[in-house]
């Protein structure tokens, strides 16, 4: 039985500077915004946890940092199939990337009613070391990411903005 809940899931490692952007976005959402009923906020440092978090629900928004050549702080909204544009980690038991975890969750959901997943990505430069702080350009982009998630939750943005 699918839960009616929509989950907004922040993924990242807050100790690796801008890699924690996804976590920072969901924390900002939880603390500073009114959320529609039935919306659960989750955060995880382990993409593998997405398999459980994406199980048994109809809709999810995954928020993560994206490494690309674009300007840091650029916000992207992607469908799962568009993740292939970005570098992927190899599938191994030492770790599963966000794309692999989402792929597995979708495959497992395919025998049921399926699951609608959107990925909100905050563009970052590759993390250079340990830091619990976000760079100014990424920190400045948090409100924009939060607004986009609120639009998606309200059904005001049903497409992909990539």
């Amino acid at each position, binding site marked *: 039985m699918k839960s009616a809940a929509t989950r907004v899931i922040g993924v990242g490692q807050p100790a690796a500077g801008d890699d924690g952007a996804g976590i920072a976005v969901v924390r900002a959402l939880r603390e500073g915004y009114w959320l529609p009923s039935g919306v659960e906020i989750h955060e995880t440092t382990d993409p593998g946890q997405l398999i459980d978090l994406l199980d048994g629900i109809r809709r999810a928004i995954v928020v993560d940092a994206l490494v690309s050549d674009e300007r840091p702080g650029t916000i992207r909204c992607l469908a799962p199939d568009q993740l292939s544009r970005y570098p992927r980690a190899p*599938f*191994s*038991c*030492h770790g599963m990337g966000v794309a692999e975890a989402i*792929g*597995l969750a979708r*495959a*497992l959901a395919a*025998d049921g009613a399926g699951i609608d997943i959107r990925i909100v990505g905050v563009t970052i430069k590759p993390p250079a070391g340990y830091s619990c702080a976000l760079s100014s350009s990424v920190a400045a982009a948090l409100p924009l990411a939060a607004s986009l998630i609120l639009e998606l939750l309200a059904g005001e943005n049903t497409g992909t903005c990539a």
Partner: protein
Amino acid sequence: MTRTIRVDCLTRVEGEGALTIRFTGDRVSEVRLRIFEPPRFFEGLLRGRAREEAPDITARICGICPVAYQMSACHAIEDAAGVRVTGALRALRRLLYCGEWISSHCLHMFMLHAPDFLGYPDAISMAQDHAGLVRRGLRMKQAGNTIMSTIGGREIHPVNVKPGGFYRTPATGELRALLPELTWARDAALETVADIARFEFPEFERDYEFVALRHPQEYPFCEGRIVSSKGLDIDIHDFDSAFQEEQVAHSTALHAVIRGRGAYVCGPLARINLNFNRLRPVVREAAERAGFGVPCRNPFRSILARSLEVLQAIDEAIAIIGSWTPPVQAALELPHTPATGYGCTEAPRGILMHRYEVDGDGLIRDARIVPPTSQNQKSIELDLLRIAGRLAGMPHEQAVWLAEQTVRNYDPCISCATHFLKLDIERG
């Protein structure tokens, strides 16, 4: 004429390495499992650290088998201090180890190895057709993880283990709460053994020397003598006299061999071959129904051995919890004695040896760690050398598939041994 088949990455293994198979005509001229994972220097950074830190520092060598590192480290430190952990604390260690075996084996069987047998490039594609199997595997793995988080404080790199015992022991109710899911998992494990027994296993056998711990009564986890299928039977303190590690130019991981004899194999297949009569009755019966006889010399059937060990670990976990009586104290005190201690335990991938020289202040003066993957490296190369003749006649994609499957039989953890494997098949 030179023919080179090149594959950029062998996935579903741990760590960074590469595999090259070179053919001259139809003859295999070279097989090299090249490991270029940078050396990690754990043995060096342990020097000067307090003995109590060894379990948590070495646990960081691996995110899949941290408990194995903690157990070998604890046993070695306790050996140096002349202390033996018994009773409920010993049982709790076995239970924690059960959790790791269940978790590590399920991840390898369902997510990394089963796609080879069922004809899928990865678990994601396999899940589209076999969602039930993957869901079952993930739930069984979670049952193992929950044991680890209940006893160890968290699933990965537990924080509750110390030489002499634990920082905190669980209340009876905390352990009993695990029983309903473990009871489900035991049925799921029986179903899994039957499912895996129906896989098609490539015909392949070699005259291996299997090496594992053997305990007078139990299927081995933390204690026993090191025995082999070719007559080795030694106390763990004699490890250095029987085994040696060799440097090879193409690998940053050392190759371990039995002195005067060469390559050997440790891990699930070795354990089950050498300890079949120590398995719990439900496991022996399942093995019989699955047509799994010992000695089994076909490494492709290691996935079946792994599934039987999952059943063993789940059944033992249920038994330990059923008879659990909390210990009087969470840990034994360790006297400060300058000494060298050995610890050898059965990590999911095979025997894991730790040796520490500890001074009178409880500081580590010297450390040595021999992980299972470095012990199996030479055998992986020899398997590939043996199978290479078949690869030579195969189309590229099929050859790569079989070569990768051959490596994955060992569930190699290159990160432990010293991420990513590149496979080159060169034909000339």
